């Protein structure tokens, strides 16, 4: 759970607000617009999967707003819905803001009706008013407040319209008494309610909730209300009344399911409300814009090729545009190293700063432009509404591999970073589907692996091919993931298929500001990691690769170098010395020790070490290579860029095998921790470790030998 801290005077009044609503109605965006928070916003159901508290001050009040995952009905169908359900039932809060989508009121009010039977103060925020206006939907908010008995405020999270009114209304409601919602049911149901109310009244039953609400909840088979009353003395008499009442209602609705009966009751009430308060000036076009776009984008034949084209274009851009500032960043860090190096007298410290920290961090920062473009691509996919379309297109295909169509959402998130991807797997209802998805998220190469790919693609392929190679790497990673899913589905996660029912949001043109914030937040996180974790790791790698000092070796070479006649011979000897020193360092010993394991894949000890340090974070692979090749083989000062060093020191086949391992093996430490938490047991981590390591090893072995044969 994230908390955004803000100081507040102790004297201020506290109001705790829970934001509840169906998915994708703009709850998170509404919080962003009332505070200065930057909660994740996206145009698909299930963006928010965990509760998040945001604090802010307004006038003399101190607010705590809780963003909850969207929920279609007041149930616990998926984990994220359970978060909301449990929060509303068990936690302490003062008031509910029920956020609804003004352009789709009838459906949204279904949840509202359920909220109104809780003993809580409720305010309705009619969000997306700007969109409603564009669609010529006019809502009479005052009349609506009167009809339902709950304040209804028009707002727009996007244009910040009505936000102040909303907060004022919250304050006012907070000061005043509970609302008496005016939910009206059909006559037979009202009769049953009246009877139970009469009964409760007769026995002067003590309760916080109104008798009417208790009666409704009992008739609806609400578990909690049942539990509460179950131990009361009146229960024995109440139970037969309830059974009788349920029978009547079921009979009336010609259904054997009270929940369904109540859904119908709510629906007809809401239809009535909407008919009264909503005026749609019908300039009725036959097709909405969304449907027109969908005609192309989810076309049964062209849909998937179009998606593949978008992906290809994204990676093309990632490489092409990302390469432009690379030289500048590279020369900046060389300049930085030289400048700072010149001010440090002590050899060891200078080497640690220049060859360790600056080389390591520089190697990672070099790829920021690529990362930014990838993040922009993902942000567009998330915020336009295209995400759900691709899930729709690929569901049939995914299904063949034993995956759920909605797995697509965590999987795509995985291209950015595995951590939020593991979290968003919560949108999958079934534990088996969720675990399966968790296991293959790692196959979707995350942003941190991009640097490794760009580095190797740049080192071994011509610039106009590199983008295609990048695309190919990502697609083959995803394909491997699908195959892995199939294998797991047939072995570890056998079971029946879960239903796939998903809402397709309307297309929205994301604001530049939204994209900017999303990308900025993620990029800053990447840079912060480079400046802290990666810098620390680079320092450690530097230390391990410089110590212990070996004086005899140094003296031996020193005398040799002195005796050397030509400059080039001196240079050559110096390089040999560096290499020898590196090999007998701690890191060299580790590398040498593990070399036999990686030998069959064609890795030298430096690559082996880089893979091992990469278990901490994938960026460390690059920074380690940066440090190791900066120390070892400064062949000539002209071309000390890492790309050149890589292409000179690593064979093509080894490089391919290396990429394959990076594609498949365990994600970083932080992601592994989140994985374990989400999977629910440490044993799953060991399964994952075993599964990915073996797969990575086998695949890399095959790739290495095939490449050797071909080239």
């Amino acid at each position, binding site marked *: 759970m994230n908390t955004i801290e803000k100081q507040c005077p102790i004297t201020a009044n506290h109001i705790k607000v829970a934001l509840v609503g169906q998915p994708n109605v703009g709850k998170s965006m509404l919080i962003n617009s009332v505070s200065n928070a930057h909660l994740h916003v996206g145009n698909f159901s299930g963006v928010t999967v965990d509760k998040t508290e945001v604090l802010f001050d307004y006038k003399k009040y101190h607010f705590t707003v809780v963003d909850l995952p969207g929920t*279609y*009905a007041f*149930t616990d*169908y998926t984990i994220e819905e359970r978060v909301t359900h449990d929060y509303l039932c068990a936690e302490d809060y003062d008031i509910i803001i029920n956020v609804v989508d003004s*352009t*789709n009121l*009838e*459906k949204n009010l*279904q*949840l509202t009706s359920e909220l109104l039977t809780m003993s809580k103060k409720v305010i309705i925020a009619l969000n997306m008013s700007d969109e409603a206006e564009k669609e010529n939907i006019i809502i009479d908010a005052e009349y609506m407040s009167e009809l339902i008995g709950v304040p209804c405020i028009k707002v727009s999270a996007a244009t910040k319209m009505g936000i102040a009114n909303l907060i004022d209304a919250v304050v006012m409601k907070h000061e005043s008494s509970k609302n008496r919602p005016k939910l009206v049911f059909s006559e037979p149901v009202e009769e049953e309610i009246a009877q139970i109310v009469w009964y409760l009244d007769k026995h002067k039953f003590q309760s916080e909730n109104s008798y009417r609400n208790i009666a409704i909840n009992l008739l609806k088979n609400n578990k909690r209300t049942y539990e509460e009353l179950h131990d009361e003395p009146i229960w024995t008499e109440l139970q037969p009344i309830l059974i009788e009442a349920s029978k009547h209602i079921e009979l009336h609705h010609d*259904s054997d*399911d009270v*929940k*369904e009966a109540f*859904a*119908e009751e709510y*629906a007809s009430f809401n239809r009535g409300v909407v008919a009264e308060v909503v005026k749609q000036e019908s300039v009725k076009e036959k097709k909405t814009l*969304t*449907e027109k776009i*969908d*005609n192309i984008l*989810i*076309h*049964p*034949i062209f*849909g*998937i090729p179009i998606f593949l084209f978008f992906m290809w274009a994204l990676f093309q851009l990632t490489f092409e545009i990302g390469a432009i500032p690379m030289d500048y960043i590279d020369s900046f860090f060389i300049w930085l190293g030289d400048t700072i190096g010149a001010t440090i007298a002590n050899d060891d410290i200078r080497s640690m700063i220049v060859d360790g920290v600056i080389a390591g961090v520089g190697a990672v920062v070099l790829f920021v432009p690529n990362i930014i473009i990838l993040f922009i691509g993902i942000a567009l996919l998330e915020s336009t509404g295209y995400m*759900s379309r691709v*899930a*729709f*297109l690929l*569901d*049939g*295909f995914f*299904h063949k591999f034993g995956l759920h*169509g909605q797995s697509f959402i965590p999987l795509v998130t995985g291209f950015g970073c595995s951590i939020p991807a593991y979290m968003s797997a919560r949108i999958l*209802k079934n534990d088996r589907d969720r675990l399966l998805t968790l296991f293959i998220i790692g196959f979707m190469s995350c942003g941190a692996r991009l640097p490794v790919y760009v580095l190797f693609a740049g080192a071994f392929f011509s610039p106009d091919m590199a983008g295609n190679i990048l695309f190919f790497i990502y697609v083959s990673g995803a394909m491997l993931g699908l195959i892995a899913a199939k294998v797991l589905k047939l072995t570890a996660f056998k079971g029946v*298929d879960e*239903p*796939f*029912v*998903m*809402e*397709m949001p*309307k297309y929205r043109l994301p604001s530049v500001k939204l994209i900017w914030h999303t990308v900025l937040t993620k990029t800053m996180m990447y840079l912060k990691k480079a400046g802290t974790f990666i810098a620390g790791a680079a320092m450690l790698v530097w230390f391990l690769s410089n110590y212990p000092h070996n004086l005899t070796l140094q003296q031996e070479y020193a005398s040799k170098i002195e005796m050397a006649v030509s400059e080039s011979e001196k240079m050559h000897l110096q390089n040999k010395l560096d290499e020898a020193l590196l090999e007998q360092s701690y890191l060299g010993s580790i590398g040498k020790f593990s070399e036999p394991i990686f030998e069959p894949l064609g890795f030298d000890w430096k690559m082996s070490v880089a893979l091992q340090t990469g278990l901490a974070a994938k960026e460390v692979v690059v920074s380690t290579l940066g440090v190791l090749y900066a120390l070892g083989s400064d062949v000539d000062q002209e071309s000390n860029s890492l790309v050149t060093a890589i292409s000179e020191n690593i064979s093509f086949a080894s490089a391919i095998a290396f990429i394959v391992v990076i594609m498949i093996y365990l994600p970083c430490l932080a992601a592994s921790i989140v994985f374990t938490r989400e999977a629910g047991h440490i044993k799953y981590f060991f399964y994952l470790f075993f599964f990915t390591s073996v797969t990575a090893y086998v695949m890399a072995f095959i790739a290495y030998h095939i490449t050797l044969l071909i080239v």
Partner: protein
Amino acid sequence: MKTLKDCEKACRVKVLKLNTKGDLKQRLISFGIMKEAILEVLEHAPAKSTIEVKIGKMRIALRAQEAQLIEVEKI
């Protein structure tokens, strides 16, 4: 008996019955797919494995298997 699965693109139908129980039924109902609801088939995914329907102003994707559980009549 005609189910949603058998419907062609652009066909409009009324829901007669949901032949399912438990969670899936709850979910369908919370989407508004219940007795008397009017649905319109918007699109089929490749191989008709998944279909997109419109209910009210909402678009919903569901698999053929699920669509098969929704009994409908053409209007």
